[in-house]
């Protein structure tokens, strides 16, 4: 019976297991402390023991919930800390040797029982090892998805260029997920700031296909409903040619080659102008400092 494995001198099993882990290549002193490892191992063994004593060997069943919980927490935390999948699964596999030794001690005289019990424990540990690897993989996937989400949010800045003039420099691939966020952010900022003009700069967008164009046109239409006019800037010559070949009609949308051109148009529309001062109109630097309220040196 598997329940016989534990009950006497369990500390020795824990000790052997710890030694194996500390000596093996799966031990990362830079990522996990000995004390934490010992705590993981102790928690696991006590849950493992209780699960075995239930008589069930179905590690996905209710009797093994506590074991799975220990492994869930452990795998997720190791994925977070940059362990590899095999380093993580070694936690389970390095328990084989101490348990096999224990079985040998118990059933030395009975070859059949020795073989059967070893086989049974081996199967359970293999399943638990796989389970650990699966949880680890799921945790990694979740981390990657979260990081991608962070990138999406990071790379959609909305910049106020002037009173009533916003700029939205787009950088990277405009897939649907990102475009959705861009649109929502832009529209929200227009509402918040009461901007009259929004410049969408696509210098950093490598490919403008019909889906990208449709997203841009929708954004412009929605902004217009909120009372803001959009200018699309940064349309490089090769993109302009391609858009024409695609047959996309930009209609009444104002487009400019550069963000500077677009800004000039925006200033004009809001009744502003940038003017060059004649030499006699410029104030000397010292006077400029004083009139702008700078502190006296």
């Amino acid at each position: 019976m598997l329940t016989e494995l534990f009950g006497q001198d369990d500390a020795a099993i824990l000790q052997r297991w710890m030694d194996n882990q500390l000596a093996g290549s799966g031990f990362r002193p830079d990522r996990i402390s000995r004390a934490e490892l010992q705590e993981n191992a102790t928690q696991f063994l006590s849950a493992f023991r209780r699960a075995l004593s239930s008589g069930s060997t179905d590690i996905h069943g209710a009797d093994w919930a506590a074991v799975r919980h220990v492994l869930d927490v452990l795998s997720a935390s190791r994925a977070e800390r940059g362990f590899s999948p095999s380093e993580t699964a070694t936690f389970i596999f390095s328990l084989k040797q101490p348990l096999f030794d224990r079985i040998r001690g118990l059933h030395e005289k009975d070859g059949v029982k020795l073989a059967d019990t070893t086989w049974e424990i081996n199967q359970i540990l293999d399943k638990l090892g796989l389970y650990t690897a699966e949880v680890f993989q799921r945790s990694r996937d979740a981390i990657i998805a979260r990081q991608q989400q962070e990138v999406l949010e990071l790379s959609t800045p909305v910049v106020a260029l002037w009173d009533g003039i916003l700029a939205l420099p787009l950088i990277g691939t405009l897939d649907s997920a990102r475009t959705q966020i861009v649109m929502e952010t832009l529209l929200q900022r227009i509402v918040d700031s009461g901007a009259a003009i929004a410049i969408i700069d696509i210098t950093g967008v490598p490919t403008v296909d019909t889906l990208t164009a449709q997203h841009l046109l929708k954004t412009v239409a929605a902004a217009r409903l909120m009372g803001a006019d959009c200018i699309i800037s940064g349309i490089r010559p090769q993109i302009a040619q391609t858009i024409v070949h695609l047959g996309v009609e930009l209609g009444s949308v104002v487009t400019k080659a550069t963000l500077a051109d677009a800004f000039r148009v925006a200033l004009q529309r809001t009744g502003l102008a940038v003017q060059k001062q004649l030499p006699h109109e410029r104030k000397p630097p010292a006077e400029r400092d004083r009139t702008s309220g700078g502190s006296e040196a």
Partner: protein
Amino acid sequence: MPVLISATHGIHTPEDVVAVRQAVRQRAVELGFNLVDQTKLVTAASELARNTLQYGGGGAVLIEGIGDGLRRGLRLTFEDKGPGIADIDEALRGGFSTAGGLGLGLSGARRLSNEFQIESRPGEGTRVTITRWR
């Protein structure tokens, strides 16, 4: 026409569409296409890859660098086992979309390439091949 290089890419997720664009751009650069032609190829690839994903339920693209002593080109073959296109003429007429799109992907891809072939049978799938010469 001898095939110089070829590679197949699966198209099953939006990220795959991005990867196809990158692979096509890289091949186009290697074959010496200028910036305008690179952009045309990548944009056509983007349209067809998205159709493969969106309507064909996923599939694959074969990217081939082809050429003889006289000229070189890039050939892209998109293939899916989806529902197929009932009326190809209609789908190729600009502005027709069954999905609320602009309906300019297929016709645009045709205008952006030098050669364009489409085979599609309802219930069996769709294959679109485009070639652009340097």
